[in-house]
């Protein structure tokens, strides 16, 4: 294990190197690009024995990924925003075909207007697809989550693809210290991939990607629901195994000072770091505030959330995405599944900076609520 200062993009690339994927079809897009670039260099230098497929679009990146995964090898890809959107159709197909692809998504706002800056609308818009989604908080989390994603996705009870979501620029372009595991430990944690349910081999011919009429389709979708359900336990088990080998502790959610909190903020991704800092500050002022970080957003960890927030009075959900007329996706998921007084806040779209003041405003507006859903950080003229 070595400790280095690097961006989350580099951390993801390092993870991809360590899992030894056989096929890497990627297409560059800000702010994911350096992942593509690191991997190209690793292959050019022989640091990974993989085929780097220089696809002509993200649509082909994910399509080649499905083809390669269908052919039975481990696959890595990465994208962001417009690229992820261009993949949309095949994103759903990949889950339905139950190929355990792992993809990093550098979260970026979506067009129009065009923006290269951070929010999480891109991956949130794929939340129905049947992919597992982890939103990481820092570069270390990005690396570790990528490693774990393979083990979880490839589990026979799951067999659903995984998306590791990292906030664009805020993580992808920020250097900070990261532990890089050594290859032996990773090999121990993640054995090589040997698919049983599907692979393309003339010695054992299978048909992948069939048409299902109304007699079968409903059950095929339900099977994904079951895989999603089962993944909760698989994720917990995987986190334990990960901790045993690498010493770092992860879970579906993180309970940060929720137990005695009256108001719990709920958020995903890099903003949780800032929130924690603010919580510490407010706690010093005597405020009973906590953070529930949703690390794994799909499967949606209902029991874990309920457990963490059982003592609090109110929830305020911070979303870096918007469903117009409804609010953020995390807000509506929480409202759908959790029985508690809840307020939604839309923050940080298109890279609007999220400062301690933003968080404090959220907290204030939860204490003295005016509406269900509030956009925090709008320029004054627009209010």
């Amino acid at each position, binding site marked *: 294990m070595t400790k280095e*200062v690097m961006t989350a993009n580099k951390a993801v690339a390092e993870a991809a190197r360590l899992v030894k994927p056989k096929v890497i079809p990627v297409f560059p897009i800000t*702010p994911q690009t350096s992942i593509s670039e690191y991997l190209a260099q690793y292959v050019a230098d022989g640091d990974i024995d993989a085929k780097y497929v220089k696809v002509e679009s993200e649509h082909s990146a994910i399509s080649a990924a499905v083809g390669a995964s269908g052919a039975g090898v481990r696959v890595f890809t990465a994208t962001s925003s417009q690229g992820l959107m261009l993949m949309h159709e095949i994103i759903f197909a990949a889950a339905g075909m139950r190929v355990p692809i792992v993809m990093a998504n550098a979260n970026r706002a979506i067009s129009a207007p065009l923006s*290269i*800056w951070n929010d999480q609308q891109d991956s949130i818009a794929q939340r129905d697809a049947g992919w597992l989604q982890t939103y990481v908080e820092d570069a270390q989390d990005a690396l570790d989550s990528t490693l774990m994603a393979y083990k979880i996705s490839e589990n026979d009870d799951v067999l659903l693809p995984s998306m590791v979501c990292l906030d664009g*620029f*805020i993580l992808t*372009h*920020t*250097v*900070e*210290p990261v532990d890089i595991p050594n290859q032996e430990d990773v090999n121990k944690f993640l054995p090589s991939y040997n698919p049983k349910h599907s692979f393309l081999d003339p010695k054992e011919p299978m048909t992948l990607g069939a048409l299902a009429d109304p007699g079968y389709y409903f059950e095929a979708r339900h099977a994904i629901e079951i895989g999603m359900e089962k993944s909760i336990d698989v994720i917990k088990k995987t986190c334990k195994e990960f901790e045993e080998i690498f010493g770092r502790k992860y879970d579906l959610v993180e309970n940060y000072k929720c137990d005695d909190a009256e108001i719990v903020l709920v958020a995903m991704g*890099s*903003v949780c*770091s*800032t929130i*924690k*800092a603010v919580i510490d500050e407010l706690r010093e002022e005597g405020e009973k505030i906590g953070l529930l970080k949703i690390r794994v957003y799909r499967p949606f960890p209902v029991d874990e959330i309920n457990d963490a927030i059982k003592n609090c009075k109110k929830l305020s959900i911070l979303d870096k995405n918007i469903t117009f007329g409804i609010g953020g996706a995390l807000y509506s998921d929480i409202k759908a599944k959790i029985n508690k007084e809840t307020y939604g806040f839309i923050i940080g779209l298109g*890279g609007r*900076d*999220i*400062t*301690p003041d933003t968080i404090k405003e959220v907290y204030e507006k939860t204490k003295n609520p005016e509406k269900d859903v509030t956009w925090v950080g709008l320029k004054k003229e627009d209010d």
Partner: protein
Amino acid sequence: MIEIRFHGRGGQGAVTAAEILAKAAFKDGKYAQAFPFFGVERRGAPVMAFTRIDDEPIRIRYQVYNPNYVLVLDDGLTHVVDVFSGLKDNGKIIVNTDEDFKNGGDTEVYEIDATKIALDTLGINIVNTIILGYFAKKTGEVSIESIIEVIKEVFPGKIGEKNATATMKAYEMA
């Protein structure tokens, strides 16, 4: 926690400088974070980058609005951007210039002719590492040993050696 802001032009290596500083601080046993101002700027356009250094793990993740230090790689920039913006009360500015920098006002301004060192030592006007040598000495926030080590890691081979020499020179001149 201290916060540093770099001003440069696209292509001058301000982002690399911010990262080298973070890495050096980490070598010194501190926690550090560095990131660019996220823009679409092209070569030649004014750009910024930031470094945070602390004894504790750094959690905050937003722009640096009130830096302790500002490093300006190109004095031309002082005419087009407000390099003083948000500077902390006792903050300091280091400017690469061959002139006497007048606009300091109350603020402590250090001048270094990094361009001269760069041209003398590297043969090209790239000053991003050089100014870090000066910074190390003047502020003591980071050790010159770590700076030099990181420079050699980031630029392996001859370029690294040369950069290290130039940076050392700035350190000594400070």
